[in-house]
C-alpha cells in the first residue's frame, strides 16, 4: 500500500495549484497559505518515501493499475529519494522568502505549485515519455515565473529561455523517438533490457538516440556552449524565483541525465561508445573552465553565481561521462550539495537586495557590519562552493576529482586527468570570485567616514597607511545603507526578513554539517551504485 505515496506526492502540489486561482476571486492572498500547506504535505510525503526507501530499498507504483511496460510506472530509489528531499525542502524554504519579497498574487502561487509538482514528477517517473511531459511542465511554469518579474527585460529573458528550452526538450523527444523505434517500449527498465535484446549498444539508432537526449538535456541543464539562456534568466527573474530555479530546475535536469544514462543506457553502453563519452567529457571540461572564468568576470551578484552554476553542472556532467563508481558518487553528492548551496547563495543575494538595494559587488562595501549574520552565512556558503572542508561542496568535488584520477589510472586515458586538472583550475577561479565577495563584505569599508576600525582617524598610522586608506575610501564609495522600508528585527542588526534569515543560517549550517556526512552519503547511495555498476 505504501507505493501509493508516489502518485500522491505528485498529485498534492498539482491539485493544490488549482486552488489559488479557483479561490482567488473570493479571497485575497489565499495563495501563500495554500502553497505552504501543500508544500508541508509534500515534505511529509517525501519523508515517508525516504523512510520506505531506507527500510525496504526501491519501490514502484503502476499508475492506473496498468502494469509496466505498457503502463506508466513511478519509481523511488535512493537517488530519486535524495533529489526529492532537496526539492521538497528547498521549495518549502523558498516560501519563507517569497512571503516577504514577492512576487505576490494568487496566480504566482499556482505557477509555483505547478512547478513543484512538475519537479516531483520528473524525479519519480520511470517512463521516458512521461519524463518529457514533466520536463515541459517544469519548463512552461519556469518561463511563466521568470516573466513574473515586472521589467520588460525579464519577459525577454523568459522568451529566450522558452525558445532554447523548448529546443532542448524537443531534442530529448527526438532521442526518445529513436530509442522507441529501436526497442518498441518506453519504460526505463524495459528499454534497458530491450536495447540489449533487440538492438545492441553500437546500433546507430541507439547511439543517435543517446546523442539527441544528451544534447537536449544539456540545453536544459545549461552546459557550456548552450548555457546562454541561463545567466539572463537567473538575473531577470524575481529573487525568490531565482533561488528556487537555481536550486532545483537545472538540478532535476541533471538528475534526468544521470537517470537516463545509467538506468536506461547503462555503463556498458558508455564503455562500448568511447566517442560519445569523450565528447561528453570535452563538453563538461569546457563547461567547467568557461563557467568559472566567466563567473570571475561578472560584477552583478546573480549573474556571477549563475555562471558559477554552469561550471558546477559541468562537473556533474563530467562525473556522468567518467562512468566510474567514485565519480558518479561525487556527481550525485555534488548535485544535492550544489542545489543547497545555490539556494542559500541566491537567497542571501535576494535578501541583501531586498534590505539594502545592493545588486552588484561594488555596492556591498562593509556590508558585514550592517548585516553580520547575512554576510556571514553567504561567506560560509561561498567558501563551501569553493570546496573548503568541511562542507558538502568539498565532498562532491573531492569524489569527482578522485574518480577522475582513478579512471585514468585504471586505463581510462588522459580524459580523467584532464577533468581533474580542470576541476582544480575551476576551484582557483571560484576562490577568486568568492574571495572578491568576502573582501567586499569585510574589508572594503576601511577608511570610510563611517567605516569600521579607526585607521582613518588614527594619527599614529604611517603616511603610506593614510594614503591607502584614502584610496580605499575613493575606490569603495559609500557604505551600504538599508532601504527605507527594510524589515527590522529586534534580534539581529540585519535589516532583512527574520524568517528568511533563519532559513539562510540554517542552510549554511546544513551545508557545513553535511560535510561531516561523507560516509553516510556514500552508504545511502551505495545500493544505487551497486545496481548500476553490477
Amino acid at each position, binding site marked *: 500500500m505504501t507505493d501509493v505515496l508516489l502518485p500522491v506526492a505528485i498529485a498534492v502540489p498539482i491539485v493544490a495549484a488549482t486552488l489559488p486561482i479557483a479561490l482567488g476571486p473570493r479571497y485575497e492572498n489565499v495563495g501563500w497559505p495554500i502553497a505552504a500547506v501543500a508544500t508541508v504535505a509534500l515534505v511529509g510525503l517525501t519523508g515517508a518515501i525516504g523512510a520506505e526507501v531506507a527500510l525496504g530499498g526501491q519501490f514502484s507504483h503502476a499508475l492506473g493499475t496498468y502494469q509496466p511496460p505498457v503502463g506508466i510506472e513511478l519509481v523511488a530509489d535512493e537517488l530519486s529519494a535524495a533529489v526529492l528531499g532537496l526539492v521538497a525542502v528547498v521549495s518549502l524554504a523558498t516560501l519563507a522568502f517569497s512571503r516577504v519579497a514577492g512576487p505576490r498574487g494568487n496566480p504566482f502561487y499556482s505557477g509555483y505549485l505547478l512547478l513543484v509538482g512538475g519537479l516531483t514528477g520528473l524525479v519519480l517517473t520511470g517512463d521516458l515519455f512521461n519524463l518529457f511531459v514533466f520536463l515541459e511542465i517544469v519548463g512552461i511554469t519556469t518561463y511563466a515565473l521568470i516573466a513574473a518579474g515586472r521589467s520588460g527585460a525579464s519577459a525577454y529573458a523568459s*522568451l529566450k529561455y522558452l525558445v532554447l528550452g523548448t529546443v532542448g526538450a524537443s531534442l530529448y*523527444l527526438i532521442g526518445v523517438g529513436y530509442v522507441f523505434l529501436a526497442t*518498441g517500449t518506453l519504460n526505463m527498465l524495459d528499454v534497458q533490457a530491450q536495447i540489449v535484446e533487440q538492438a545492441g549498444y553500437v546500433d546507430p539508432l541507439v547511439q543517435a538516440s543517446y546523442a539527441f537526449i544528451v544534447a537536449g538535456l*544539456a540545453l536544459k541543464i545549461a552546459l557550456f556552449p548552450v548555457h546562454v539562456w541561463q545567466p539572463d534568466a537567473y538575473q531577470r527573474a524575481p529573487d525568490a524565483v531565482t533561488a528556487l530555479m537555481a536550486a532545483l530546475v537545472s538540478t532535476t535536469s541533471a538528475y534526468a541525465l544521470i537517470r537516463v544514462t545509467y538506468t536506461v543506457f547503462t555503463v556498458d553502453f558508455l564503455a562500448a561508445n568511447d566517442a560519445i563519452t569523450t565528447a561528453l567529457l570535452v563538453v563538461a571540461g569546457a563547461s567547467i573552465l568557461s563557467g568559472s572564468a566567466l563567473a570571475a568576470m561578472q560584477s552583478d551578484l546573480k549573474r556571477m553565481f549563475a555562471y558559477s552554476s554552469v561550471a558546477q553542472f559541468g562537473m556533474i556532467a563530467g562525473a556522468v561521462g567518467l562512468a566510474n563508481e567514485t565519480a558518479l558518487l561525487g556527481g550525485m553528492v555534488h548535485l544535492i550539495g550544489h542545489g543547497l548551496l545555490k539556494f542559500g547563495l541566491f537567497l542571501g543575494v535576494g535578501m541583501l537586495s531586498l534590505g539594502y538595494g545592493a545588486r552588484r559587488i561594488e555596492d556591498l562595501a562593509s556590508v558585514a557590519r550592517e548585516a553580520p549574520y547575512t554576510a556571514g552565512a553567504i561567506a560560509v556558503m561561498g567558501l563551501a562552493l569553493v570546496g573548503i572542508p568541511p562542507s558538502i561542496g568539498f565532498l562532491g568535488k573531492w569524489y569527482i576529482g578522485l574518480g577522475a584520477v582513478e579512471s585514468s589510472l585504471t586505463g581510462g586515458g588522459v580524459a580523467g586527468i584532464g577533468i581533474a586538472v580542470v576541476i582544480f583550475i575551476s576551484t582557483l577561479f571560484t576562490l577568486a570570485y568568492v574571495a572578491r565577495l568576502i573582501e567586499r563584505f569585510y574589508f572594503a569599508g576601511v577608511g570610510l567616514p563611517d567605516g569600521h576600525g579607526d585607521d582613518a582617524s588614527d594619527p599614529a598610522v604611517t603616511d603610506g597607511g593614510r594614503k591607502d586608506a584614502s584610496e580605499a575610501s575613493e575606490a569603495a564609495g559609500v557604505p551600504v545603507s538599508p532601504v527605507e522600508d527594510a524589515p527590522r528585527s529586534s534580534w539581529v542588526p540585519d535589516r532583512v526578513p527574520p524568517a528568511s534569515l533563519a532559513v539562510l543560517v540554517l542552510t549554511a549550517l546544513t551545508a557545513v554539517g553535511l560535510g561531516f556526512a561523507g560516509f553516510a552519503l556514500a552508504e545511502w547511495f551505495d545500493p544505487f551504485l551497486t545496481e548500476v555498476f553490477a
Partner: protein
Amino acid sequence: MTGVGAVLASGTAATSALEVMTTRHAYVAFALLLCIGLYMMIANPNLVKKIIGLNLFQTAIFLLFITSAYVEGGAIPIVASGAAETETFVSPLPQVIVLTAIVVGVSLTAVGLALCIRIYDEYGTLRTDTLRELLRDEGAIPERPQLGDGRVATDGSAAADGGESDD
C-alpha cells in the same frame, strides 16, 4: 510493434539515395522540416516568426512518430470481446504520444505569444536587433559586450551549434 520491426529490417538494407527519397520520403520530410524550423529560429529576427519556427520544429517530430507507427493495412487496435485477434493492428502508443506532444506544444506557443505581447507592449517592437539596442539603452544589458556577455549577442547560433555538435 510489427511496423517498427519492418521499418528497422528494411532500414538496415543497403539503399541508394534515390530509393531513400522515394520510399522514405516521410523521414526525409522530417529531417527537412526539423532543419527549416531550427534555421528559422536562429536566423529570423522577428520573435513571432521564431515561435513559428519552433512550431515547425515540433511538427517535424510529430511526423517522425506518426510515420514510424504506420503499418500497411493496419486496423484500429480495438478488439471486440470474444473476437479472434487475427488482424494486423496499429500500435496506439505513438498516436497517444503525438497527442500529448501537441498539447504541450500548444501551451508552449501560448506562453511564448503571451510573452511576445508583453515585450511588444513594453518596447513597441518584436525585432531582436532593435530590442537588443533598446535593452542596451535601458542598461539591462551591458554597453559594449564584454567577454562574458559577448556570447549573449550570438545566442541563437551558439545554441544551435552546441546542440548540433553533440549529434
